[in-house]
């Protein structure tokens, strides 16, 4: 199961900071956003905003990066500072 993490206001939209997703094969992040958006339009468009960054297993990647079934995918909205 891939672990999805939603930070900041994205967690409110997703109804929780974490979610798991079974992936039978690797998917690009942009594809996963499409899949999420198909069932939750508001969350899907929030995840696709250009200011949202993505990290796989703690490393920043772009939307083409492939997520595998054991990966942790984090959606990082603009940080608000400490």
């Amino acid at each position, binding site marked *: 199961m891939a672990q999805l993490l939603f930070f900041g206001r994205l967690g409110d939209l997703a109804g929780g900071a974490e979610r798991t997703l079974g992936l039978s094969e690797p998917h690009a992040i942009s594809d996963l956003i499409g899949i999420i958006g198909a069932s939750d339009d508001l969350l899907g468009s929030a995840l696709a905003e250009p200011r949202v960054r993505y990290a796989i297993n703690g490393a920043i990647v772009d939307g083409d990066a492939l997520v595998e079934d054991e990966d942790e995918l984090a959606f990082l909205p603009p940080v608000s*500072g400490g």
Partner: protein
Amino acid sequence: MRTDIRIVSLPFDPESELATFRSSLQNAGGLVSFTGLVRPSSQGGEVSILSLQHYPGMTERGIAEAVAGAASRWPLEAALVIHRVGEMTPHEPIVLVATASVHRRAAFEAADFLMDFLKSRALFWKSETGAEGRQWIEPRDEDYADAARWDEG
């Protein structure tokens, strides 16, 4: 350089941390500290709870890189970063940055640099709860501008 970076979810005492930090110094002539406090109000009015979220592991690595960047720019003897996460009430300390150097100017600039990083680039997400409910906060333009001062030209 000795570094101490901590993300804490319980209240901390900035002055006792500073006393420990100071007692560790061998050659430094100056110690600069910044203590950030939860303000009782913001643009949106009175604030009763400030909540800070981080990405465990990744947030710490980002701060460690910024501290390493400071060490490569300025001759520091030691640096300390303590950052609170979770729920806080007004006047509680959120952040403590301390830097020590033989040179006064180096300690000032390094502390300033680290705070600019923490305020605009570190992985923290902040929400404020006031009379109007909970609201997510984004950095002010001022914070981005402060941080950009240190970028390579």
